[in-house]
């Protein structure tokens, strides 16, 4: 499924009643089975963009389209949240089954589907645990399994690993890429981490500071499947430098505020 964002702007009213323009004239297309990272400094509205694509917010201007066939009863998108957003009163298994319940699957079908994605995300044996009993990395596995279980043609990820420590993050990135090699959805992946964006994505969309505009799109010329060894390759280093160059001034300005 293809995601098309057409001239989208989003204006918020802040507490004082002033209009704040979070996004300004965003044009963006993410192709079927493409892995696109949306990168930008904090406060550039990249999470807003994701919420707009998920249909959790309405754009002030412009429109968002999902192009492709969707069987009835299927959800087009699913989301993985930075703060995990697991339901604390549900066990791991019940969390993973949440979206399936809303799709109206029978108990058996839900259990079968959950089994598959619990195994895929390395959660076997943790089915009856509650989120508070798990480490951050394991919690986000639940978040990913919950999203994968609805088998969405488009997977939206909002800084999914930024709350994790560096080692766990590295491992989770590799696992996610491994899973994606098998499932191959369209992925829109929001991050503020340049290395992560380049390592994971086919294409990196760089946003400016508020109001968020598309500064550039950088294609990553690295083969799939990605491997840690590629972190030293000229193509990787080159892409990172180019993006850093693009947002350096923005970051400096943000620091001075």
């Amino acid at each position: 499924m293809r995601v098309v964002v057409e001239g989208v702007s989003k204006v918020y009213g802040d507490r004082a009643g002033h209009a704040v323009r979070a996004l300004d004239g965003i044009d963006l297309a993410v192709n079927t089975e493409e892995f696109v990272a949306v990168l930008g400094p904090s406060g550039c509205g990249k999470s807003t963009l994701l919420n707009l694509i998920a249909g959790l917010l309405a754009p002030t201007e412009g429109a968002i389209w999902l192009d492709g066939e969707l069987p009835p009863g299927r959800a087009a998108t699913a989301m993985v949240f930075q703060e995990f957003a697991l339901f604390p009163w549900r066990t791991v298994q019940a969390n993973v089954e949440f979206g399936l319940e809303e799709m109206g699957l029978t108990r058996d079908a839900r259990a079968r589907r959950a089994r598959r994605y619990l195994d895929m995300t390395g959660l076997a044996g943790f089915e009856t645990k509650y989120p508070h009993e798990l480490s951050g990395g394991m919690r986000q596995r639940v978040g990913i399994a919950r999203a994968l279980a609805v088998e969405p043609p488009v997977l939206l990820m909002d800084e999914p690993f930024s709350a994790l420590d560096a080692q766990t993050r590295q491992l989770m990135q590799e696992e996610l890429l491994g899973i994606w090699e098998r499932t191959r959805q369209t992925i829109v992946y929001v991050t503020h981490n340049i290395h992560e964006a380049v390592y994971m994505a086919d294409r990196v969309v760089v946003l400016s500071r508020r109001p968020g505009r598309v500064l550039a799109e950088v294609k990553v010329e690295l083969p799939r499947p990605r491997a840690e060894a590629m972190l030293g390759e000229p193509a990787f280093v080159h892409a990172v430098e180019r993006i850093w160059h693009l947002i350096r001034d923005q970051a400096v300005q943000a620091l001075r505020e």
Partner: protein
Amino acid sequence: MTRMAVVNRAAFLTRPEHRGLRVIALVSLLVAWEALARTGRVPVLFLPSPLGVLAEGWEMLRSGELLGHLASSLQRLVLGFALGAAAGVVVGVTVGFFAAAEAVGTPVLAATFPVPKIALLPLLILWLGLGEPSKVAVIALGVFFPMAINTFTGVRQADPLLVRAAVAFGARRWSVIRKVILPSALPMIFAGLRLGAGTALLLLVAAEMIAVESGIGFLILHAGNLMQTTKLMVGIVVLSILGVLSHWSLGRLERLAIPWRVST
């Protein structure tokens, strides 16, 4: 060169449990009371001895007198509590979730909440008569308000991120209420049940002092009128036991209903 040992300066902040002390405090209070009563300096009319109260209670239990009063009281209590709690949860969720219901409900609740519910008993008797319904209704009203307000607060405290996550996974209004709002509000709902249990006991006794022939409140009033202080004390002890029991069972129920709570 001198050597200074580093000691734990925060030691006085630790709070040991002192389990033994709890028992000792309660037992010595009873012993002191019993001793005071036995000196004969205080007339039994004013202060019956604990053992005397115990003996009287046993006698009333054997004759069936106590159970009769207890049964009538429990019936009013349970019925009023259940009605008030159920209505409170429904109103609390509705007012907390729907903006229009909040606009209607908040001023009405704010205006009626401060009224001491016992003041409504004469009105309820006018409306519902002297029988059981007016007693049950005043208890229900007393439970309703803390329940409605606590549930409302619980609903409002529901994490917007979780609501958003539920919607992102396809949940509609009713699913959001059932699967996110209600579980989020559950700890506050239980706090409301505890508050309501106290209020219910208070109103039960007050209501049973008007135009009834049975119940713990009637027992206390009647014994007082006849200056049967020992019997009166039996009634008070039974109320204390009822209060402790309801608190304890609500605590057990809460731990069962909220297994995800880290530990309380």
